[in-house]
């Protein structure tokens, strides 16, 4: 459960479902908004992660 990626996906899933049900009534509009929000959050997170990759915040962690 402590995988960063898995937690990000679960978080995106919860929030996307919440706003989909809060903001849309028709089934098709719900599906479209859900996909936009979910893949927007997961994809955006991955893009930001790769943009930060060349700029580590500190020395690399020692290999155990």
């Amino acid at each position, binding site marked *: *459960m*402590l995988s960063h990626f898995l*937690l990000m996906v*679960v*978080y995106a899933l919860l*929030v996307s479902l*919440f706003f989909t*049900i*809060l903001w849309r009534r028709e089934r098709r509009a719900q599906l479209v908004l859900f996909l936009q929000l979910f893949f927007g959050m997961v994809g955006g997170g991955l893009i930001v992660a790769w943009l930060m990759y060349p700029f580590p915040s500190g020395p690399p962690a020692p290999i155990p």
Partner: protein
Amino acid sequence: MADTASSENPPAAPPPVQTALAEPLPMPQQVMAMALAWLVPGLGHVYLKRAVRGVIFFALVMIALGIGISLQGNLYQPIRGQWLTYLATFGQACSGIPYFVLRYGFHYQGQQEAAGYEYGTAFLLTAGLMNLLLVLDARDIASGQKE
């Protein structure tokens, strides 16, 4: 040749805009819906006869809370001189009864040393803020501004 028909039969006025919105409820019922929505996530929607939506919202907020607790996220309380803790406490207390049960019933605080501490805090904050939106949504429905 003058057109006399238009002066005798003026064009009909456009029909009034049809809205599917309900009549606003009396103010006491609006306040009751908001209070119930704050106390128990989704209960405001159940009170407003949106039971399915209310149950789904309850499940989503509880899942977020459950994940936050299982990750040992921080349950904020105000700290003098640290103003952001007031804001964070307000955000988490918006989840209603679950917040107070955790704080005063189980004396839950979270563990800063836990590996999932930051993630858990984000989930706990999100649960409270989702319920704040549910309170505002219940108010919109009760006042006839939303279906």
